[in-house]
């Protein structure tokens, strides 16, 4: 452990590599978490099938790549297809559980997750798949630091998507309706907002975002029908750590966790990466609980 810290001191250049890796990894997680936070905030459904929607997007890119479509171009059709899929799922399942208790919506989305996993397994087989973007590496500091172009592109796309989302929520009529519904669905309904349409829109946008994340993940890491769970868990960790309804917080938390994960992997070993993240989440929750307690006391 101290040896590894020493490396960072003797050759600070590796800090750059760790931060670059962390930020680019986090950008993709950020997308998934952003969609989750949106759905959570607006419909209060905790979507356990988040990661499986990501895998669907990945397989979309893989299938299109087999037909000669470059995976970057696949972003558009895959997002569109996933948007439509999200709409169907909303009409078929989510709509029916939105008013019910937490447990029912958890069960419903868990069931959806299993259905997507098994369908992907039947359709594409259990192979670990990757999609090659064909992009090269960017070498910095005379080859000391190497990062793939696709990671940088993915990072750029994530930033673009996030900006587009913020603008959409702030400026467009639908965005305003989504925000209004998130604040108070009943009031929004009274004022003439079609909340059912808003819910459908929110879930579909989330599916489209997941689809886009899936395309990027297929190019950067690997996809497999059963690997969605990792992304679901990570998205939940980020959203919980950021705090509900805090969309800018999601971005900051995702990037912070991404970099922290790289450092813990480097310094104490890859086996402790996850433990660090979950440990940090625990600390944040305890800290938040304590500050809440203090507030309550001051109220009394």
């Amino acid at each position, binding site marked *: 452990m101290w040896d590894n810290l020493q490396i960072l001191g003797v050759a600070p250049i*590796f800090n750059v590599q760790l931060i670059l890796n962390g930020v680019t990894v986090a950008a993709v997680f950020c997308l998934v978490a952003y969609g989750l936070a949106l759905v959570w905030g607006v419909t209060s459904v905790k979507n356990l099938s988040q990661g499986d929607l990501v895998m669907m997007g990945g397989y979309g890119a893989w299938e299109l790549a087999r037909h000669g479509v470059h995976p970057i171009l696949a972003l558009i059709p895959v997002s569109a297809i996933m948007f439509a899929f999200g709409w169907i799922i909303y009409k078929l399942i989510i709509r029916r559980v939105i008013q019910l208790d937490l447990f029912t919506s958890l069960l419903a989305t868990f069931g959806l997750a299993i259905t997507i996993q098994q369908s992907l397994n039947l359709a594409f087989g259990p192979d670990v798949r990757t999609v090659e973007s064909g992009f090269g590496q960017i*070498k910095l500091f005379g080859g000391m630091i190497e990062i793939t172009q696709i990671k940088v592109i993915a990072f750029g796309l994530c930033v673009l998507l996030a900006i587009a989302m913020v603008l959409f929520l702030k400026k467009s009529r639908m965005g305003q309706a989504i925000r209004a519904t998130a604040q108070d669905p009943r009031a929004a309904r009274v004022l003439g907002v079609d909340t059912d349409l808003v819910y459908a829109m929110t879930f579909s946008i989330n599916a489209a975002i997941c689809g886009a994340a899936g395309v990027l993940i297929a190019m950067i890491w*690997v996809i497999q029908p059963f690997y969605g769970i990792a992304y679901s868990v990570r998205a939940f960790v980020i959203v919980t750590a950021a705090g509900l309804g805090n969309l800018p917080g999601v971005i900051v938390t995702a990037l912070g966790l991404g970099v922290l994960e*790289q450092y813990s992997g480097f310094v104490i070993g*890859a086996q402790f990466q996850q433990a660090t993240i979950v440990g940090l989440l625990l600390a944040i929750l305890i800290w938040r609980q304590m500050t809440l307690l203090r507030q309550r006391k001051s109220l009394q």
Partner: protein
Amino acid sequence: MKHRLQFKRVGCVAASAVALAFATMAQAKVEGDTIILGSAISITGKYSQEGKNASDGYNFAVDAINAKGGVKVGGKSYKLKVQYYDDESTPARTAQLLERIINQDGIKFTLGPYASGPTKAALPVIEKYKIPMVEAEGASRSLFTQGYKYVFAVLSTSDQYLAPAVDLAAELAAKNGKKASDLKVALSFENDPFSLDVRAGAVDKIKEHGMKIVVDDKMPRDLSDISATMTKIKALKPDVILVSGHTKGATTAVRQAKEMGVNAPIVAMTHCESAKFTTKFAGASEGILCPTQWAETLTYKDSLFGTAKDYYNAFLKAHPEYKIVPYQTAQASAAVQVWADAFERAQSFDTEKLRDALAKTQMQTFYGNIKFSPAGNNVEKPMVLRQIQGDKYVVVAPTKYASDPVVYPRKAPK
């Protein structure tokens, strides 16, 4: 009156159900002229790819044996058939399903599941019921240290997987005027029984040669990202990199090593075949050493399939969806051959006689020589080390079986 009638009817149904259950119990292991072998194997879940490789191997051997007239027991020819259940890649499920296979289906002869974890869960069950199992996919050393008597494994144990790579590194260092004890080794292994066994075998060898371990990371379990480990390896410039983490680990390692410009004179990984290195990572995987239980260029042969090469060609002809034949498939076929051989030598369907016959197995198959130690592992077949050269696997070690010289040091992929 009505009540009594109803009572009688229920009684009749219950009695016939019990009778039927007994009848199937007695017959299920051998139905007419068919011997049923039972296997719980990964059809879904994280081992589903390897599980399919294995069950395809079982089926291929069963078909080949049946096509040649089946197995002769007591002057009568029997066909073989495998009854599969999906263990969802979960060891607990494997154990449940074996209970089902043995108790409900009445099957008395079993083939192993995929991977050491599920096999480890299966063994207590088969020991409890004294049902013999020939397994081909559980290589963990710990499977053969518990004193189990009903398991027979055709493959080499997992601690022998990467040990030859360490030996080779020492041998090559000596040839190039370097001391083996000066070599630095980086390890990246998944945290599961199989990979940790591979690690233990490699670490024993590393200590034997007095090499120094500079990186010793376990892969994060659910995430396919090892860039932190790769950064460390890049910083410390080891002479040997050893990786084992099933298909996902191999895919991730070969990809990220290339992306981050990480290389060493010796790079060895397990699961190159199932990660499809030569087709999916042509170039990036050049020069990587891959241990294998079996290679088609080996000189073993038997009367059913012919030589290793004959098996290879026949399997590819029957399964055009495969680019190469994974060793998981070959050893699964060999396990079925071991069963067929035991039936013919025991001339009985009695599980105790069959167990004894299995224990006395001594045969050569296309897959290798098979002779079991009292613990049940195969002691007659060594591991083979292959190197990817020009997108082809060539045997480079042990030198006795090598078809080509090793390319050393490994060149960084472009």
